[in-house]
């Protein structure tokens, strides 16, 4: 078992702690601080959230995606051929993202997350940091396509561009690479397309490759997941209870990202409740094939509650570990 998180972490704390990133971005927007000063704050806050994750007991962390406004525009801004458009609701959340508008052929221009990952790994020391990207299929689904006018072409164009990033991550010895693909749950009929792009991505990455889903049901994908050439498949067991049905048939050839702590509700799970859910999974899945994590990224919660949730998650895992010894 490995204790991990899905992707983002709340960017600002609540009083009495100071919301310094919010203030810094506001000051930068008003021209009161320089880009360098803002970057310094981004780094400081990234260090803080790395420390928080580690102190909570997370064993495979992220950089918290502190620089990301949302899962789409942070990537799209660094690719050629894309403009950033209006605000759209992110799935069923009261959270919004800026829509990428595809105006021309998509091309990789500059490192997207490589430098963020390098810095985060340096600050995290011997705790591994996973590199996280939004997957090509989800990027395509959440974009407005004024160029390819074809979902398959657009998805493959995103994949081709992101593979340039994957190559860099591989060169820099990234051990864990995760792509988020929540959109596939809403269009299970596109699974062949998903398969095709992950077969391609797999060629360029030798470490642990993960695909994470969240917010919805995975049951329509149940018999297909095993075909994905990946090491870890993440599922949200909170938003849809019926996803527990997948446990008994979960593929033996990969690990499960077991999303059991509610990333979208403040109600705090107890370590006992978490331990029970882990034991339920251990009936079907080998210990070494379980990554225990929240149901989604943690930015839907106030920072302090996100931390408490991680603390209890780690306590729950350790209860089970203790009993096993």
């Amino acid at each position, binding site marked *: 078992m490995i204790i991990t998180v899905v992707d983002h972490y709340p960017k600002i704390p609540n009083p009495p702690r100071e919301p310094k990133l919010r203030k810094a971005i506001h000051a930068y927007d008003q021209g009161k601080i320089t880009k360098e000063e803002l970057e310094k704050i981004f780094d400081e806050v990234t260090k803080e959230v790395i420390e928080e994750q580690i102190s909570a007991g997370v064993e495979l962390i992220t950089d918290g995606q502190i620089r990301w406004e949302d899962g789409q525009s942070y990537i799209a801004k660094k690719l050629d051929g894309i403009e950033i458009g209006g605000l759209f609701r992110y799935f069923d959340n009261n959270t919004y993202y800026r829509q990428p508008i595809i105006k021309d052929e998509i091309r990789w221009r500059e490192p997207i997350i490589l430098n963020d990952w390098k810095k985060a790994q340096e600050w995290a020391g011997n705790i591994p940091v996973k590199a996280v990207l939004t997957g090509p299929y989800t990027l395509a689904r959440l974009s407005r396509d004024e160029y390819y006018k074809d979902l398959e072409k657009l998805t493959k164009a995103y994949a081709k561009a992101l593979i340039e990033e994957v190559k860099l991550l591989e060169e820099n010895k990234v051990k864990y690479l995760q792509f988020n693909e929540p959109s596939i749950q809403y269009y299970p009929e596109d699974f062949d397309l998903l398969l095709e792009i992950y077969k391609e991505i797999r060629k360029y990455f030798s470490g642990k490759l993960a695909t994470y889903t969240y917010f919805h049901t995975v049951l329509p994908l149940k018999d297909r997941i095993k075909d994905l050439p990946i090491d870890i498949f993440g599922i949200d067991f909170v938003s849809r209870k019926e996803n527990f049905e997948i446990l008994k048939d979960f593929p033996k050839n990969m690990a499960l990202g077991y999303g059991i702590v509610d990333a979208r509700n403040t109600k705090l799970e107890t370590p006992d409740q978490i331990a029970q859910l882990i034991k339920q999974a251990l009936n079907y899945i080998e210990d070494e094939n379980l990554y225990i994590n929240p149901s989604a990224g943690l930015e839907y919660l106030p920072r*302090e509650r996100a931390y408490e949730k991680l603390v209890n998650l780690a306590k729950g895992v350790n209860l089970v570990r203790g009993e096993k010894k």
Partner: protein
Amino acid sequence: MLVVFPNQITLLKQETNTQKVKFPTLLYELELKATEEVIKMQEEIGVDILVHGEMERGDMATYFAENLEGFTISGLVRSYGNRYYKKPIVIGKIKRTKPITVDMFKFAQSLTKKPVKGMLTGPYTIADWSFNEYYDNKRDLVLDLAEVINQEALDLEKAGALFVQIDEPAVPTHPEEIHIAKEAFQVSTRGLRSFIITHICYGDFRPIWKEIINFPVHQFDLEFTNNADKLYPLIESVGFPPDKYIAVGVIDVHTHRIESVDEIKQRIREALKHFRPEQVFIDPDCGLKTRTWEEAKAKMENMVKAVNEIREELIKQGYPSEITIKLEL
């Protein structure tokens, strides 16, 4: 008609909220003053059915939660970019202990002879946009909120509201829960005798259109500027009840750009291909809170000009210049 005017004093409010309000009277006076300005501005522009501008509200769900028993308010969560809000947390059984929106409605209505809309957030949306630490299932939470919104709507009517708007932007996000939203809407509107409006935005209506159009309302207020490519095909394929009214959003509230009168007239003409003129109300896509007052005013002025020009054309073609609205549902 318009929904929400930009909230000039948001910043001040947030600060006072976090620093334990020392001058509530001052804040309240500022809210009243801003409301006066919003009413005056709408009258000058020539809007027919006004809103009070929601100067007293921070977030459309949180404002109600702050004034109800059973809620507490969380720390900050991000909605997009650098914008954060305090999300409500349900920690007990929800009850209304006093009217929430009535005083501000009365004040706004006292400033004008034109009708001012009573503005409420729907029970499904308040529930969906809150953390829930108390109720075992969402239906119970939504239905308790529906009772509260119904009490509030009845009080608004007693205070003289001819138009009651219940906004439900969260409804399209969970098509599988549409039956809960519908049941709650029926409870919220029980016994009402006013013109009932619902505004729903940012959504994909395709899976729920057939259900939504049978909600007990007189008017649907939808974002036809940002969502025209999805809404019109639905209206063409599934239809729209001929006895209901439609408020057609003709202003994009998320751009700084001021749409020209011709552009807006084009959007109105598109609407008139799908609805009879007497079914149609015209408004911006959504609340104008994210625009500056200058932008909002300029957008609204062009909108009213466009409406007046199209009205002239229609009257020349023989359409009556007044309509009578029947209120039974």
